[in-house]
């Protein structure tokens, strides 16, 4: 049996710049659509697994022999076969267990610095394969989880490790790029769940309403709810301990949320402009912005976290510099693009209108999120 490597170890080693060869054996279509993306460049060779079945010697000869090879496929089956073929040809090879499926599910917890003596502990759980960010906030023995992914065990385990009880679960909006773990996590934790679909959407879920300006208390801290229509009509911003702003898909480190998913980018664009100008205006420049997504690994900071200082974003994000509503809305309308492939079905699942088997949800979620408005900023510093 050939050895294997898990996603966490592969990310850690390739993020650190270790010299490895990544051999991706998926078909051309899957390889073009979605790639493994470490923080440092990783030499990647693409040879579909069926070439190893047909021409094993020719395929093996295409793989550089000077470094350890890690073999990746969609679910870990074909890559195991190829890794075994390479190992029996005398190569140093390991199989990436679980493949891109495991990569898409993996959550990397990163602690956000909140300053000495802070009563608030902020953990960002980075779903590297999707570019989705969720949060666990802890104060004393209580925790609140925001925008959780479907793999809810990660949050339950982290809370248990920190000795905290999850007392509230919230989504900043009805997500359309991934299936929310919110209802399931709330049920498992015995905590209330909050999400607001906004007007025009039927929400078939039992939720605790979050009024604009209300507070979610936990431990010695509290989260203030700020209604923030734009990306969706029911979006909220959650301000934790007066300094950490969970900005959902309203504001990212490199752009703003797309207001075109409802089919009327001008109407939602006007709402987004009002949110970005009026709702954010009272917040000081040193507010720490913690978004629900990022567009490229270049947005991950040296400390491993995706975060921005509000003052910097006011200065650097092109859409944040547009002072006129008309110009802002024009930019949003011009940047409108088709909704992601499984948008409708994910939305229906998150609204509680449809129950789907786990395999279907997994298929819908393949690939990276596309939640930012298309602009120079949202295209990211690296394009990808």
């Amino acid at each position, binding site marked *: 049996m050939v050895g294997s490597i898990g996603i966490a170890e592969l990310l850690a080693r390739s993020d650190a710049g270790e010299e490895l060869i990544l051999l991706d054996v*998926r*078909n*051309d*279509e*899957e390889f073009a659509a979605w790639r493994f993306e470490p923080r440092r460049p990783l030499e990647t060779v693409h040879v*579909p*697994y*069926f*070439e190893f*079945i*047909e*021409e094993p010697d020719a395929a093996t000869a295409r793989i550089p022999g000077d470094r350890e090879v890690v073999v990746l*496929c*969609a*679910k870990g*089956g*074909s890559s195991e*076969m190829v890794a075994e073929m390479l190992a029996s040809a005398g190569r140093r090879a390991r199989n990436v267990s679980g493949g891109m499926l495991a990569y898409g599910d993996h959550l990397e917890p990163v602690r956000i610095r909140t300053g000495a003596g802070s009563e608030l502990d902020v953990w960002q759980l980075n779903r590297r394969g999707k570019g989705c960010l969720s949060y666990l906030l802890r104060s004393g023995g209580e925790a609140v989880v925001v925008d959780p992914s479907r793999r809810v065990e990660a949050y339950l385990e982290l809370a248990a490790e920190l000795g905290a009880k999850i007392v509230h679960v919230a989504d900043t909006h009805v997500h359309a790029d991934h299936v929310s773990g919110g209802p399931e996590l709330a049920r498992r934790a015995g905590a209330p769940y909050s999400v607001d679909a906004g007007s025009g959407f039927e929400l078939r879920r039992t939720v605790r309403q979050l009024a604009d300006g209300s507070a979610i208390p936990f431990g010695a801290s509290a989260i203030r709810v700020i209604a923030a229509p734009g990306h969706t009509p029911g979006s909220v911003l959650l301000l934790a301990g007066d300094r950490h702003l969970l900005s959902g898909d309203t504001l990212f480190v490199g752009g703003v949320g797309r207001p075109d998913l409802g089919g009327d980018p001008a109407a939602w664009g006007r709402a987004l402009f009002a949110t970005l100008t009026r709702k954010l205006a009272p917040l000081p420049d040193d507010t720490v912005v913690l978004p629900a997504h990022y567009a490229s690994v270049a947005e991950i900071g040296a400390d491993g976290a995706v975060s921005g200082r509000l003052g910097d974003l006011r200065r650097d994000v092109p859409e944040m510099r547009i002072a006129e509503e008309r110009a802002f809305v024009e930019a949003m309308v011009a940047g409108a693009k088709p909704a992601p492939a499984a948008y409708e079905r994910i939305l229906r699942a998150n609204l509680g209108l449809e129950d789907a088997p786990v395999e279907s949800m997994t*298929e819908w979620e393949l690939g990276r999120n596309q939640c930012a408005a298309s602009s120079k900023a949202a295209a990211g510093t690296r394009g990808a």
Partner: protein
Amino acid sequence: MAMRKLDVRGAKCPIPIVKAKKEIDAMAPGDLLEVTATDPGSVPDFQGWVKTNKNALLRDQRTTKDETGREVYVHVLERKA
């Protein structure tokens, strides 16, 4: 001209291609092989594989439901001369 059938429902890759290759390489020219799979990734996989296998020609690919209501991907291959 004979039509063989290969049921690889529930199998994940590389099993569908490994089994289809075994069948195709042993078939007579002109014979057909109908492969039924449940993995959506089998669609681009079969398209890519026939480019590297000198014996197989991809005649048809379709998506349908099996008797249990499960979505299945049917690939019809012909053994080349």
